[in-house]
């Protein structure tokens, strides 16, 4: 039987399928013409390029400053520096010397009663209030409304503050007299 030329599939007929899912975009009726025109123009024109100095709406990264160990030589593939593995943070005195950040204070010395303990007029002391004062430690005490630095003596129920200079008297406490230990000296800072 001879096949008819009529009927069957017609190429290009039926619902058009896009290569990917599509969305409908709503635009104001009044702007429709202008938008369609603009899109056509853009499609026709070569890709947009800006002059070098004009970079509109660009985010500029401005990293905050940080201490990063930094290598001054260029790095070449295949030849890593033998020092790479050894890059470490620089020493930070705050970290090394201060164990209790919140309880640590700096005080400046005035006077000469502690010179034999290595504490001179004008030195700065690092004082840690978190440490419990013990016999023989150098402490800051509040005596008669003043802060004073002395060696703490506490033996057999006797409490004294010792000077480290024979020309200065020790301070002894009798029952009822009040003395408050302000903090324990952990370091002396000197200028040389």
């Amino acid at each position, binding site marked *: 039987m001879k096949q008819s030329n009529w009927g069957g599939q017609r190429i290009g007929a039926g619902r058009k399928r896009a290569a990917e899912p599509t969305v409908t975009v709503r635009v104001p009726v009044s702007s429709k013409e202008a938008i369609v025109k603009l899109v056509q123009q853009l499609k026709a024109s070569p890709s947009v390029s800006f002059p070098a*100095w*004009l*970079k*509109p*709406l*660009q*985010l*500029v*990264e*401005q*990293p*905050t*400053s940080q201490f990063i160990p930094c290598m001054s030589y260029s790095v070449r593939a295949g030849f890593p520096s033998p020092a790479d593995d050894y890059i470490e943070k620089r020493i930070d005195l705050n970290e090394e010397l201060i164990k*209790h*950040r*919140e*309880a640590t*204070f*700096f*005080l*400046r*010395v*005035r*006077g*000469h*009663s*502690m010179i034999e303990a290595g*504490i001179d*007029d004008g030195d*700065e*002391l690092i004082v840690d*209030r*978190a440490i419990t004062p013990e016999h023989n430690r150098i402490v*800051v005490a*509040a005596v008669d*409304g*003043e*802060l*004073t*630095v*002395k060696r703490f003596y506490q033996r057999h129920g006797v409490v004294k503050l010792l*000077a480290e200079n024979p020309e*200065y008297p020790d301070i002894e406490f009798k029952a009822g007299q009040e003395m*408050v230990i*302000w903090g324990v000296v952990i370091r002396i800072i000197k200028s040389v």
Partner: protein
Amino acid sequence: MSRFVLVDANNFYVSCERVFNPKLMGRPVVVLSNNDGCAVARSQEAKVLGIKMGVPWFQVQPLAKKHDIIALSSNYALYADMSNRMMTLLGQFAPKQEVYSIDECFLSLDGLNVDLVAYGQKIRQRIGQWIGLPVCVGIGPTKTLAKLANYIAKKQLQWQGVCDLSVLPESVLNHLLAEIEVGEVWGVGRRTQEKLTGMGIHTALAFKQADATFIGHHFSIMMQRTVLELRGVSSLQLESVVPARKQIMCSRSFGMPVIQLADLQQAVISYVTRAAEKLRAQSLLAGAVHVHIRTNPHRQKEAQYSQGMTVTLMEACCDTLKLVQASLWGLQRIYRPGYRYSKAGVILMELMPKGLKQMALFTDRNYAVNKDVRPLMQTVDRINQRMGKDTVFLAGAGIAKSWQMKRKNKSPCYTTEWNELVIVHAK
């Protein structure tokens, strides 16, 4: 049951001063507001002598002379540092912390199985030894009750600084509340108190037993919650996330009235300089500057004027020079001659992190990079950090600064300035 803890330093400003100046121990001491105007903190001894909170200092001068009361100017650099130390330490005591003000914070002890009174004593001991500040601890099943517990711990010595309302039988608790004026309840201000008293609600107990819906109807939903909180129903949670700063302000009263534009300009330049330093310290940029000036509203006989203006910058920056330029431009426009100005201020607004800066549409990027002032600002900041405040400053800020506020009796910045360390005697 939730358990809230409120830790609050006693007479915070005075206590901070006492840590570094033992002479102030046991003596009546007050700290005065900016310009040495009013008493903003009082030692227990000064309270006993009848110095009221906020009283203008000149009014109590005779009393002060008679009893040898020591008046100090406020030293906010010192108080801020001591507050930071205290809050850091307190944060180590609980999984959750809400810093409520410079001298008090809430802790939430949910999930911690400890004897709370002993824990409170441990907190007191730690803060006392490590930083020398006396604190009181209030504990309760709600924030409002914790706050009230703190009040009781402060007023009644038998609690030894720690009061736990969460373990008291209802009858004992009510007995305590009956002794406390309703105005002492957290959130009840002076006007609310007056209105409540008018309704016959005088004490914290009466407030607790009031009809909550009735209170909500006549006041606010917040007051209704307060009533519930007094009954032990927790309806306020800890707010441990501090919202990012949206503004940086620097505003001060003058030591004497200022009339000339030139003096106002000096003041504004100084304030912008200070605010911009803070801005850079937090790695932020400002998108706008607000500048305001006003006369003294307490001198009703003088002509009054108050005006402010916000100047938007083309591009956010942290450059003192640009911010000064913008604020002076604004000042020029709001300044009116013939008034006696008592205060000026600047606010840096539209703050954003450095990395998020948006360039203006038509900025020439190369030009912007060449004119980068960051190294200059960094250098100035470093010099001032190392050599002391205002070692390098804009000449426009003036040198004599006749307008500067009075702080006749300010203690040294013991903990924040290397040149002002506490003196320890060796004699």
